[in-house]
């Protein structure tokens, strides 16, 4: 049982700073997802924890012990790789056994462990096959099996599900989550898929350009984004982020001008904002409800496009050259060209300042 702690970790490749002064802590029992777009430094961070990449500066502590100068094999970690990294010439059983060789176990103990892991991940049928005879999902399970067969301090997963198709991904997501919750170890998962992060993690760290943008629980990351990047990155369809101007402040009720119309929004608590300054408001497409009359508490616009999303529809509403999007139930009979009034739901409007940071009164 051990924690993973990163202190001011930085990695530069020449002039490019891939990871910039990252500090993080993963507690025992905690599953941390490093989430971010491609090239944000999340995999580099993971590889530094594994010791496959040397940090330019900063410290890595595993179980409160500094491992900066420790070789990969002495760190006692297990990692599952994006492309599975199975040894092509070895069978599934031999692949699973490989991490055990360092532990000097007897053949029987090794066999027992292989069968144990094979049972957990439903690999019993295929233990004697070679990797090229496996389906993608089976390879993925073997890769996970190889990571969990030993009893390492912590687990690292690099994009574990990115190569699976949608159906299999959903299924494996649940399975991995189950396996991880049984293991009760500090785990780091790297992913670019927010759904993966939101479902599997107990804590999410959103990264961009080598920097940590926000570290929170999956719920808070979604409900209380710290800045416009996190707000836009998490959640589909993407949050509407619109430039606005504050016209009037009346304790918690702020009158803003957005999309060429004045709207009053009740933020429930007084915010530290200035009159006549410009800000951004963020409202998720699912945070609107349709109302009959255009009053001061709702937005109005013309429907420009309707996208079918199965049980729901995504409505593009245009007003004065600016569009915003709203998800509505199929039961509303909406047509292109209709004028629609949308009222943001209570407490689901986010306000950001000019540089994109959230303004919130905790």
């Amino acid at each position: 049982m051990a924690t993973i702690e990163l202190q001011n970790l930085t990695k530069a490749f020449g002039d490019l700073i891939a990871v910039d002064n990252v500090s993080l802590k993963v507690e025992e029992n905690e599953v941390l997802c490093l989430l971010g777009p491609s090239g944000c430094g999340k995999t580099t961070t993971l590889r530094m924890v594994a010791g496959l990449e040397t940090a330019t500066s900063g410290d890595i502590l595993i179980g409160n012990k500094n491992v900066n100068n420790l070789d990969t094999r002495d760190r006692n970690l297990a990692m599952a790789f994006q492309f599975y990294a199975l040894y092509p010439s070895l069978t599934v059983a031999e692949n699973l056994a490989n991490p055990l060789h360092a532990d000097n176990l007897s053949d029987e103990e090794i066999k027992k462990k292989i069968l144990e892991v094979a049972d957990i991940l439903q690999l019993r049928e295929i233990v004697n096959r070679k990797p090229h005879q496996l389906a993608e999902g089976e390879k993925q399970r073997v890769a996970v099996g190889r990571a969990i067969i030993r009893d390492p301090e912590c687990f690292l997963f690099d994009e574990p599900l990115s190569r699976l198709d949608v159906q299999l991904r959903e299924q494996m997501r649940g399975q991995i989550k189950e396996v991880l919750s049984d293991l009760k170890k500090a785990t780091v998962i790297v992913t670019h898929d927010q759904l993966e992060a939101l479902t599997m993690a107990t804590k999410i760290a959103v990264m961009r350009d080598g920097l940590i943008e926000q570290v929170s629980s999956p719920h808070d990351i979604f409900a209380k984004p710290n800045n416009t990047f996190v707000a836009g990155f998490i959640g589909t369809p993407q949050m509407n982020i619109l430039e606005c101007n504050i016209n009037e402040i009346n304790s918690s009720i702020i009158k803003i001008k957005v999309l060429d119309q004045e709207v009053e929004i009740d933020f429930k608590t007084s915010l530290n904002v200035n009159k006549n300054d410009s800000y951004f408001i963020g409202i998720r497409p699912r945070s609107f409800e349709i109302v009959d009359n255009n009053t001061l508490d709702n937005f109005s616009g013309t429907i420009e496009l309707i996208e079918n999303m199965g049980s729901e529809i995504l409505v593009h509403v245009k007003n004065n050259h600016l569009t915003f999007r709203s998800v509505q139930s199929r039961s509303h009979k909406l047509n292109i060209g209709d004028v629609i009034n949308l009222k943001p739901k209570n407490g689901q409007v986010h306000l950001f300042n000019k540089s994109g940071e959230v303004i919130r009164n905790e």
Partner: protein
Amino acid sequence: MKKRAIGQAGWLWTSLASVVAFIYFFPVLFIILTAFRSRSDTLATPPKWFFTPTFDNFYHIFFRSMANSTEYVATGFHMYFFNSIYISGMSVLLALLIGTLAAYGFSRHPLRGNDTYMFIILTTRMLPPIIVIVPIFLIFRITGLAGTYTGIILMYTAFNLPFSIWMMKSFFDELNTEIEDASRMDGASERSVFFGVCIPQVKAGLAATSVFALILTWNEFLFSLLLTNKLTRTMPPAMARTIGGEINVDYGLLAAMICLFIIPIFLITYLLQNQLLRGVTFGTIKK
């Protein structure tokens, strides 16, 4: 694309391929036949296709009468044959050993200006070797390397290194480095990552590179002619001397020598053909 098993091509393609193969093989066939002809049969016009085979030519490679004498003496050819095998073998092994290590380094631990180094290594193969023959001859004479096994082996190793490094680097570049990282996670040392994980995966590359280097070294004439002496001479210059030393050329003898000369290279290529085929097609198959 429809997949077709080997041996299932249509008769048209098969016969066309046979004709092409025969055209390619014809000179070799002619040499082999000549090696078994007697002297009078060799010079007959039109060529005699049916004759009584004789092993005289092969015997004469090792024992024959020298000018103006009827007594048969040993020619020392077995020694040249051994020299060729020893020198080629050693230089190919050395080039493979150094080349593989260097290629792994260039591939996995790139230096600042890695591509420049790789290019400089390649430039040594851009000039025809004859350009450097005078300085090399002088260097060899001054250092006392001329006429020694060490000298010619080093020379051939230097010849083989550039493309050994280039070929092996491309094979290492093709590997999935995640497997190496995975074995590091599994507790492997850097040495066992190289020997246990990387080398087994580039077996085909090693085979292709060694056959390539072997053919080049085996056939090399110029440097062997100048840098070896009577004791360390390899087959190509030794064969050439057989033509030049006599009043007229003994084609039968020469053909027999060629037969012996191609046997080792033929055997090795045959033994490695599976690996070789994989090696040649390696880069063209998507992972």
